[in-house]
Structures are given as C-alpha cells and as structure tokens.
C-alpha cells in the first residue's frame, strides 16, 4: 500500500480534489491570513477525506497526520479545521502537546483577541450567529453553541486520566460525546510505536496508550496530528502512518517554494572575537538596509555554546567585554582581512553613507548593550524541583523569546546552548554564531550535535515578511541569486557563522541537505540565456517596444452599483411550506421545476415593507453600514441601499408555494427569504472584492533592448528545465535568445512554432519569438500576476503595418484547470484590443493572446493562433 498522502498527491494532480476553502473558514480566520497554495491543498484534502469514500480510507474513528514544515502555518491549519469541524457539528476540541511552553503560546494564539498572532477574525459567525472560542478545563463546562477548547499537555492529560481529580478531565468526559483531538508536535506521542519491537504489551500506561484509550471512546472522534518531523525510516512508524499521513509538506518544498530564508554558511579564518564582531556588523548591516528601504526590522543574533550553561554565560560576559572595548583598529583589521563578500559590502555601505567607524561603534554599543542581550536559562518548566523564583523567571524569559518581533522587545542577542527547540517561532533571527569547534561525525556521517545544529538552522530560517512593491508576495523570498542582485537579499538570508574547517563544513552541509533547508551548489547548474548577436543588431530590437500593465490598489471609487462590482443580478427562490417557512438553497431561477403543484410569485425587495428589510439587514453583520460604505461609496444610507435600484431595490425573490400561502406571505416569510437573499448577495460581493486590480491600459512601455537582456538562471541539476535546447534554436533567426530553459511543454511549443513559422512569412515580417524569463509581467482584473512564457512579435507587411505583441503560455494538460484564469486573461487581452491599436512613436501596435498551447491539442492551438493575428 502507498502512503495516503501519495495517493492524494495523485488525486490532487488529476483534479479529483476540488481546491477550495469554504467561505465560512476564510471569513472567520484572521483577515491578515491569506491562504497559501499548499495550505489550500491541506484544507481541500481534509474536506475530501471526510466527505468521500475510497478503498484506503481508515475505519472510524479517523486519525489524520499533517506532516508540515516548521513555519508553514500549522496552527493556522488547526484553526481552519476547527472551524470546518464546528460547521460539521463538533463543539469540543482537545488540544494537547508535550510541553508547557507550547501550550501557553497556543492558548494565546487561539484565545487572546489582542495578540498580534491571534488566529481568528475578531468576530466568528456561522449563519449570521456569533460563535465564541471558549477555553474549558473539562467538557462539562462546554457550551453547545461555542467552540470549546481544552488545552493540556500530554503529561497532564495522562495523569488526569489515571488519577481522577476535581475540575479536571476524566475518562467520563470522553464517553458518549464526539471530540476532536488536536495533537501538536505529535511525534512525541509515538513512544510506544517506536519502542515496540515485537508484540510488546499495550497494557502498561503510556502517553500513546492514554491517547489511544480516550480516542477510542467514540467512533465519531477525530484525531488530527501535526508535526514537522516524522521518522519515515522507522518501520513501525511507517506501518502506523501509511493510511494516516494526509499531507506532507516538508522543509525542502517549503524552501523551494521560497517561504523560508536562504541559509548561508559564513566561514571565516578569524579569531573568535573578530568572528563575533563580524557577525554583529553583518547583523547591524541588515537592520540598516531594512531601514533604508522603509522596513521596520530588528534582527537578532543567536550565540550558541556547545554543552554547558556555564559556557554560555561566559560567552555572554565575553561579548559584553568585546562590545564595550570596540576600537577602530579592530574594524580596520576586519575590513582588510575578511574575504567574505557580504562583509565587504557592509563596509562599502557604511562608507558610502558617510558613517565612520567611531559612529558605527557607538551604534553597536547602543544596540547591543547588556539590556538588549539575554542568556537563556536551560531549565525545564516541567521539572518539579524548580523553585518559585526560577519558575517565574522562566515564564518571563519564554515571553521575551516568543515576542522577539514585537516593537517593544529590545533583545538583539541571545546566548543559549540548545533550549531553543520546538515551538520557538521567531522570524527575525538572522545570524547564528557557533562558538565552539568540535566535530562529532562518525564514518563520514554527521553526528548528533551536527544534526541538532542543522535542525536549529532549519527552525531559524523562517522568513521575515516584507514587501516594497504592491505586486510582491510579502511572505516569499524575492531576491534569489543569480536572477536578482538586490541589496535587500541580505534580509532574506540567515547566516551561520563558523570557523573555516572544511571537514566540519562538509558534514554540516550533509546534515543541512538532509533536513531540506539547504542545497549544495553542486546540485545546481547555471544556465546562460543570451540575446543572439544578430538579433541585437536589428532595427527591430533597438526600436520596438513592449507593453505591460500595472497593478494598483483597489479603492472601490467607481463602484456605483452591484453591476459595476460584477455582482450579477440574481433572484433567489424561496419555498413556502404549508406549515412553517423552510429554506431551500436554490439560487438559480433557471432550475427545472420538479414540483408542478406549486405556484410562484415574484416579489421585489422594494415591495416588501421596509422595516422588515431593515431587520434582515441588521441581523447580518456583513451589511453594517460602514462596510457597505467602504465598497459602495455612493450609498447614502441603509434606506438608500434598500430602495436604490442599483443595489437591493431591483432584486426580487421568487416565492413558491400553494396558492393559499402565496396570497398571504407573512412577515416572517419575508424575513427568512431576505436572510437568504442577503447571504447570497454577500457571497457574490465577497467573491468580487479584490484588494488590487490590473489596469485596463498597458501604459508601461519599454524598449525590447532594455527589457530583454541576458539572463543567468540557477536550475536544479535534475530539473527538466536544465536541458538545453540551443541545438534546435541556434539557427532559427526568429528565435531571439540562444537557448530555452523551459519545461518540456515549453520546448515542444518552440518546435511546433518552428513548423508554422514559414507560413507566417506570407503576411508578416520581423517575426521574433522571445522567451520571457519573468521580465514581462501583466496583471489581470483581480490583480493577479502573470508572466507569460513567450512573447511573439510580428509586423504586418500590408495594411497598417501593425506590430502584434502576442502573449503565449504553453501549459501541461494537468495544470490547465488550475491556471484557467490565465487563459481567460489571455483571451480577455485579445478581445480588448481586437478592434484597436496603440500608437507609439508613429508605429502601430496591437496586443493579443492565445489560449494555452498544449502538445496534445496542437491543432486547436494553431486555429486559435491564426484567429489571434486577424
């Protein structure tokens, strides 16, 4: 049998799983949260799993594992799943994890509405009813309308179950009620599974046992497990989790999709003190670069001791000595001796900005003073021998370490051994300095210490979100080399400072590659994409221009009616039962009439007594006047919104029912029907709201020679894109670059085009196909960014000598559905410019697009292609 996640990978690829998050999840999660594609995937899979039957599905109760990298937003997935299961009728949620640290942090994220990391929207509503998050100690206190969450540690859960106490969970709590179990850092509860060699006894109480025992109390229970580390090498684990891992998104994917920092190993042959200073300079440089670009950033350095707290304390004392006694000679010394490019860059930056060494020293002394440094107490909160003072200090320290990004947190440097493990999510850690030199590899395999270091780096590599253009994705790396050369790259980097020891470095690299956060440079090939010399010398290259449009913030200024926003006028149907009014959810008026005995009657909203409409509006939070005003600037009042034909005024409800019922529609009928109508309109409006939009005009005009320059690409060795196509394109005059590092579909397109190009020469001259390596970007109506793979330029020989700029996107058949909007956008461009040309410098241009090129449907493409050049 395959792993469940692999089966679902396949199902997902073939479009069996619908990639959608229900509105009630999106709307009730924190508005700051924007679902990333892999998060949509996780939700979709879970929804699919619950609602479909298939061979490999487990028997109830379901136990599902989300194996997702640190920083990939596991808690957000938990919050979303809680909302989904609430809608499915679950009210009781039990969250458990192995450590108290994580509990406190999680409680804060789930229940503290003032926390910057609060997961939910400020109000949670289901069917316009408000729902609260309630933290409970046991499920007797549970409220049947709320989301009741009991947070506990696995240890506490275990002892509660085995020794019953007042006000704590008992096994009785788990009988006869369905509960959702959420297990964070779930690998910790696999104690039994990993140890179990043969048929060892399951009777002895253990954590895993406890969980299993309570979980089995009810068949409708669901156990959701989350972890970043699942041991796929362990036989028992593999056996247990094969049918259970619903989604696997590991650190490698996370990094490859640019959601992490880029890890850099900075090795230098300096004295310890100079190495420390070098790290401090680099860290400060990062802050100054951020500041220069208007980004509020306080980068943090971690100084790591090998084993003992005493060493760590000594490191801290030494650090203060270094900072207090900084001298200009020291800086001069590093400047002369450091061969590290980024350090030299920092020095250049400071001298360019006229910041002298003495000013820099003052700055470092200010920023790295004693009050801005913290030494981490490595004691464990769970330890019972801990005295009260230490406990308080530990809790305070945890608070400081978990809020490093906050504005009023002054910490710049942390001294620790290895306490900073699970649950420490920090975004602004930018440098780690290793203050020891030992290696512990055996037979070429990285030892435990090195493995632990690699894992620490993996955790520290969480991306610090920022953007400086509106078309950038705040949460992704934007300046990867070699395709970019931007000073901001440095605040996308995590530097790991070590001494130059090639053996250690190669061991560490091995360990890092294993975790997935790092790629050896040898894994990549650098590919050169150059404009052919003969193309460079053409007039066409020098004088023709490229048109792009822009992305802008949507201020909803011009929205004067539902229609402008794209809300299609939709009447709804409402069925009047002979008894009380009951709601059906058929929105389409065109639906075939199955029940012939019913009559129907249309009632306009404007014909319904206005006080009923007002009541309906007051019941639905979305229709608060301030919200309406935001999207519909022209609305004067609620009354106006109701009566104005541009808004609710012209909408109608089709009532269906017996003749008797239709002659006497009650106020309650109206109210219920209006509730439905408002809900339908609400989701229509929400579906059409976009924070950004692409402009209709293509006003960004650049000469081809400036737009299409030589490009250097870094491509994985085994990637199909690394395969050169230069042999094929080198003698094709119409192909502008010397090569094509595209997917196989993109290469096939070039070959297909080669077969058609002869025919084009009949009517056109200056035919050039240009590979677009992200140079040209366009934005659709919703502001989504699209970089078509190719641009084709052709110039009419006759008529008006119009130059066509055509956007072309080859697409594998399995991706077509997912990227449908791009195809629609391509056709939209074609339609928009079908009848017009753009005049520029006495030349005429016309923009156009074609549907996706797919190898399988090449003939259809050719027909469409010819259509586009008409």
């Amino acid at each position, binding site marked *: 049998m395959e792993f469940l996640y692999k089966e679902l990978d396949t199902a997902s690829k073939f479009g069996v799983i619908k990639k959608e998050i229900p509105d009630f999840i999106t709307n009730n999660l924190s508005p700051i949260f924007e679902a990333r594609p892999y998060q949509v995937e996780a939700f979709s899979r879970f929804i699919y799993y619950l609602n479909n039957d298939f061979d490999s599905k487990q028997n109830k109760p379901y136990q599902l594992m989300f194996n997702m990298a640190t920083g990939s937003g596991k808690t957000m997935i938990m919050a979303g799943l809680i909302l989904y299961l609430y809608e499915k009728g679950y009210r009781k949620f039990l969250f458990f994890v192995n450590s108290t640290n994580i509990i406190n942090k999680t409680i804060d994220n789930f229940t503290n509405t003032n926390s910057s990391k609060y997961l939910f929207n400020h109000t949670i509503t289901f069917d316009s009813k408000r729902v609260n998050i309630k933290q409970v100690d046991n499920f007797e206190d549970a409220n049947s309308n709320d989301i009741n969450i009991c947070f506990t540690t696995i240890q506490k859960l275990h002892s509660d179950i085995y020794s019953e106490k007042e006000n704590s969970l008992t096994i009785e709590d788990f009988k006869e009620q369905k509960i959702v179990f959420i297990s964070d850092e779930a690998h910790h509860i696999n104690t039994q599974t990993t140890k179990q060699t043969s048929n060892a006894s399951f009777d002895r109480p253990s954590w895993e046992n406890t969980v299993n025992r309570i979980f089995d109390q009810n068949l409708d229970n669901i156990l959701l497990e989350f972890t970043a580390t699942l041991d796929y090498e362990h036989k028992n684990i593999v056996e247990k989790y094969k049918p259970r891992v619903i989604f696997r998104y590991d650190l490698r994917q996370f990094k490859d999709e640019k959601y992490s920092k880029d890890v850099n190993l900075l090795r230098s042959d300096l004295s310890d003190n100079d190495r420390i200073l070098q790290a401090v300079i680099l860290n400060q440089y990062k802050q100054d670069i951020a500041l220069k670009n208007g980004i*509020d950033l306080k980068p943090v350095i971690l100084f790591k001791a090998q084993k003992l707290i005493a060493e760590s304390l000594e490191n801290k004392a030494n650090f203060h000595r270094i900072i207090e006694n900084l001298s200009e000679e020291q800086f001069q010394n590093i400047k002369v001796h450091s061969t590290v490019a980024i350090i030299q860059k920092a020095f250049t930056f400071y001298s360019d900005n006229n910041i002298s060494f003495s000013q820099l020293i003052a700055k470092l002394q200010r920023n790295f003073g004693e009050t801005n440094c913290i030494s981490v107490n490595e004691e464990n909160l769970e330890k019972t021998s801990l005295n009260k003072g230490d406990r308080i200090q530990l809790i305070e320290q945890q608070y400081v370490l978990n809020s490093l990004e906050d504005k009023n947190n002054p910490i710049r440097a942390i001294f620790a051994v290895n306490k900073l493990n699970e649950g420490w999510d920090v975004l602004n850690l930018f440098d780690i300095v290793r203050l020891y030199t030992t290696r512990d590899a055996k037979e070429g395999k990285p030892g435990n210490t090195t493995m632990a270091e690699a894992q620490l780096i993996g955790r520290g590599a969480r991306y610090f979100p920022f953007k400086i253009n509106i078309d950038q994705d705040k949460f992704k790396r934007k300046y990867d080399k070699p395709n970019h050369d931007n000073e901001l790259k440095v605040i996308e980097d995590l530097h790991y400072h070590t001494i130059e020891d090639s053996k250690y470095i190669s061991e560490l690299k091995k360990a890092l590659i294993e975790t997935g956060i790092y790629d050896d440079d040898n894994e990549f090939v650098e590919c050169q994409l150059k404009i052919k010399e003969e193309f460079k010398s053409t007039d066409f290259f020098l004088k023709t221009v490229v048109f792009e449009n822009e992305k802008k913030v949507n201020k909803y200024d011009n929205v004067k009616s539902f229609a402008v926003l794209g809300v299609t006028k939709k009447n709804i149907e409402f069925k009047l039962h002979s008894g009380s009014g009951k709601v059906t959810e058929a929105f389409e008026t065109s639906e075939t009439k199955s029940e012939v005995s019913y009559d129907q009657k249309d009632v306009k909203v404007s014909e319904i007594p206005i006080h009923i409409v007002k009541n309906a509006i007051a019941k639905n939070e979305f229709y*608060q006047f301030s919200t309406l005003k935001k999207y519909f600037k022209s609305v*004067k009042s609620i009354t106006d919104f109701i009566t104005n034909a541009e808004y609710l005024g012209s909408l109608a409800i089709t009532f269906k029912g017996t003749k008797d019922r239709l002659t006497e529609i009650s106020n309650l009928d109206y*109210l219920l029907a209006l509730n439905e109508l408002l809900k339908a309109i609400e989701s229509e409006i929400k579906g059409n709201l976009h924070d950004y939009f692409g402009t209709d005009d293509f006003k960004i005009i650049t000469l081809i020679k400036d737009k299409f320059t030589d490009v250097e690409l870094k491509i994985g060795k085994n990637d199909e894109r690394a395969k050169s196509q230069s042999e094929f394109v080198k003698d094709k005059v119409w192909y502008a670059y010397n090569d094509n590092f595209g997917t196989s579909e993109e290469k096939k397109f070039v070959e297909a085009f080669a077969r058609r190009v002869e025919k084009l020469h009949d009517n056109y001259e200056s035919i050039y196909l240009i590979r677009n390596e992200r140079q040209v970007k366009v934005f659709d109506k919703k502001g989504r960014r699209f970089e078509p793979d190719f641009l084709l330029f052709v110039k009419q020989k006759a008529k008006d000598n119009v130059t066509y700029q055509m956007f072309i996107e080859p697409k594998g058949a399995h991706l077509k559905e997912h990227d449908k909007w791009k195809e629609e956008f391509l056709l939209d461009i074609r339609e928009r410019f079908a009848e017009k040309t753009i005049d520029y410098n006495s030349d005429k241009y016309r923009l156009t697009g074609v549907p996706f090129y797919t190898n399988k449907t090449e003939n259809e493409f050719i027909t469409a292609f010819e259509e586009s050049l008409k």
Partner: protein
Amino acid sequence: MKVHSFLNYNVDIKKQDEAIDDFKQLSIETQKQHLCEILNKNQLYVNLSTIDDEDYQVSEEDKRLTRDFYEIKEEKEIVQTKADL
C-alpha cells in the same frame, strides 16, 4: 414614526394603519406603551458603524467627538512596510 423608527419585523404596518382610529381612542399611556412595543429594542441607539448613514443626520461635531472618544485610528498591519502605508 413609520419612516424614522426601527420597528420589529413582525409589525404589520397595514393593520396598524387600519386601526389608527381605534388607536386614537386609547389613553395616552396605553398609546405610548403600544408604540414602545412595536419598536425593535435592539436598535434603540445608532450603531457606531452606522454613524455616516445620512438618515440619522449625525453632525460632524458629534462624529468627531465619537471618533476621539473611541480613539479610532486607521487599521495597521503588524509588520509594517513602506508599500503598505
């Protein structure tokens, strides 16, 4: 009152109008009580979100005072960036 008050949804305006003569026969106390009954008690005050609704004719002065009182500022993102501002 028909125009400016927020009535309960189950009030039948037509029947109210038809009964206007009967209504006038009642004592002023009973009249008051009746009118109170048909109001939606959840909507006795103007919601903050409704402050700009022209029906209520809230004065600029009152709006300013309210905003100061609740210290309403523009919402800010947690991680501020230049482009967001």
